[in-house]
Every structure is written in structure tokens, then in C-alpha cells.
């Protein structure tokens, strides 16, 4: 359950942002958790629910975006879409591809007071 540690990281990041941008409450928080990242979004939501109590994030609506995976296939010399490590290239069936994006873990934006 490393999602608990990630939830605590998100809270720390938001509190740091609150000092910079002078806000006191977060209404909504938007995250990007790539489909090839090592994070389970449901576990992350659960982790957030327990770490936000009594904090600036309490009551905030959390929206988790799931960017898909894009990769570069060496054999096709082209960009392809993948959804898991070990996937075959949808074009040539090979597995000589390098992930370009889809493993990100980011705080995108927030609506604050």
C-alpha cells in the first residue's frame, strides 16, 4: 500500500502550494495517474481519504485522470499505444518498444479558496 505514502506526498505538495499561492481551502484537486504507473487509483483515493482529515484538503473533490500509454516501437519505427508493460505492439506483435508517456504521477491543478 505505497499509495498511502503517495497520498501523504500529495498533501505535502498541496500544503506547499498553499504557502506559495495563499489559499486556505481546496475545493477540487485534479491528478494524472498514468495507466502504466505503479499506482492503483482506488487505493490512492482510499489513502487520500484517510490523510486529508483536518487538513486543507478535507472535503476536496478529487478527480483522477488516467492518461494512456504511448510508446515507440523500434520495429515499426512509429508511435504506438500500449496499456501495460509486456504488451505486444498492436501493429507488428513484437515487444521492442520504449515507453514515451503513460507512467506519470502528477498533480495537475486545483480549485481553491
Amino acid at each position, binding site marked *: *500500500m*505505497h499509495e498511502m*505514502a*503517495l497520498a501523504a*506526498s*500529495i498533501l*505535502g*505538495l498541496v500544503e506547499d*502550494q498553499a504557502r506559495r*499561492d*495563499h*489559499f*486556505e*481551502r481546496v*475545493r*477540487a484537486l485534479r*491528478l494524472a495517474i498514468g495507466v502504466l*504507473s*505503479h*499506482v492503483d487509483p482506488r487505493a490512492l483515493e482510499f489513502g487520500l481519504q484517510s490523510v486529508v482529515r483536518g487538513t486543507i484538503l478535507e472535503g476536496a473533490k478529487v478527480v483522477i485522470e488516467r492518461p494512456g500509454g504511448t510508446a515507440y516501437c523500434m520495429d515499426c519505427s512509429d508511435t504506438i499505444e500500449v496499456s*501495460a*508493460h*509486456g504488451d505486444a505492439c498492436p501493429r507488428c506483435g513484437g*515487444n*521492442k518498444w520504449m515507453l514515451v508517456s503513460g507512467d*506519470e*504521477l*502528477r*498533480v*495537475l*491543478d*486545483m*480549485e*481553491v*479558496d
Partner: protein
Amino acid sequence: MCGVCGCGQEGQPGPAGHDHASGHEHPHHHDHLHEHGHSHHHDEHPTEDGMREGRLITVERDILEKNNRFARGNRRLFADAATLALNLVSSPGAGKTSLLVRTLGDLRGKAPLGVIEGDQQTSLDADRIRSTGVPAVQINTGKMCHLDASMIADALHQIPLPRRGVLFVENVGNLVCPAGFDLGEASKVVLVSVTEGEDKPLKYPDMFHAADLVIITKVDLLPHLEFDVEALEGNARRINRRADVLRLSTRTGEGLAAWYGWIDARRQQMVGA
């Protein structure tokens, strides 16, 4: 001040242009515990249905940025000391500590060595390591399921960095959580034993994808098992094409020379870099 009517702005009297009782509902309180005239923004505005919106802030920050900052610091220390740092990961019971104890015994005297041991509780593993004469520090993670880079930064104050040598970090036995946390190591080394399933790399792809070396352990048991070691190796390569794969037995010593060769080649790279 009020973002709609401007009432309450410094130098202005209170509401003048409209009646708050019959006009818009005053959208925010002015009774918070600070003086006005400082830097917070009051630019929210009511929407058509009378609900005000908050202020939108673009953040675009990596959730792991703090861990990654510590990891960069650790990596710089390792580079300055030409220390090869290896992060050993596996499920519980794959044989990390046994391989480590054997490795330390065999490499001792040939290169400076050090160990950071991670476990939820006890210093049993560090005690086993210290019995080899190699400096070891135990990190108890408590309820945490993985080591993070700040724990390593703390531990590095407690043992001498093995200059031009090897620092082994034995992570918490867990094939899931440690995958996402860069400790500043040169490589993650994942161990999988032949008493586990051939499909482990497919079930836990994140860890196998993050590793530079896959070590298949306990191969001395193969004659007693129905285990397809080729299938395991194929699955590991399917998840991670660039990783090296080694097979060994800590008990019999089979395959250890290749493991030591792998370490030595990496160590030469660190020293030469």
C-alpha cells in the same frame, strides 16, 4: 474585498452601489483571521446559478518530487565516492539476505562494502550482515512497505560510504511498493526464486520493468520441482528487454561467479566514470 461589487476594498466605504439583501448573495466571509491588503486573491465570482467558483491554480508537479530530490542527492554522493549502489528487491523469502551474506563473505577484502537493511521491524538481518564484518545499518520502516530516498539519506550518515566499492540496499520484502521509489541507486536488482511462480514477472510487471538485473535464485532445488525456468526467464524478458538475467544458488554456489562478474563490471564503470 468582494470580487463582484468591490465592497470592503481598502479606502472604500462598505456596500454602496447595490443592496446585498436583495442582490447577489455575498459570496465570501470577511471574518477570517487575517487583515486584508496582503497577497491572497479574492477573484472568485458567482456562476449563473449563484454558486461561486474557486480560483484555479495550475500545479503540474510530480507527486514523487520530494523523493526524487533526495534520490538525486544520494546519487550525487554515490557518484562522488564512485560507490556502486544496488537496490535489492523481491518478495519475502526469495533469498535476498542469504545471497547478501554469501556475497559479502566472498567479496570482503576485494572491495569496500556496506549494507543498508530495510525491514518493517527487528534488526535480525543487520545482525546477520554485521556477523560478516561488513558495516550495516538497519532501517525499520514501521508500517511502511518500502524504503524511500530520504530514509537512505539518513542512513548514509550512520555508516561510512564504501568509496570505490559497493553499497547494497536490501529493500523491504515486497514485490509491489518498492518499484516506484528511486533511492538514488545505480540499479534495482530483482530476485525471484524457483519456488515461486513462473508468471511472477507478468503478475508484478512494475518491479520487473524497473530492474536492470533479474536473479533467479534457489536453482539447486530445480530437480525437486515442476518449474519451467525458461518460461520464467521468457516472462521476465517480455516485461523488460534490457535487463540481464542470471540463475544461481546461494547454497551450492552455482552461478555466483556470474553475479560477482556483473557487480565488478558495474563497479568498474562507476570508478571509471
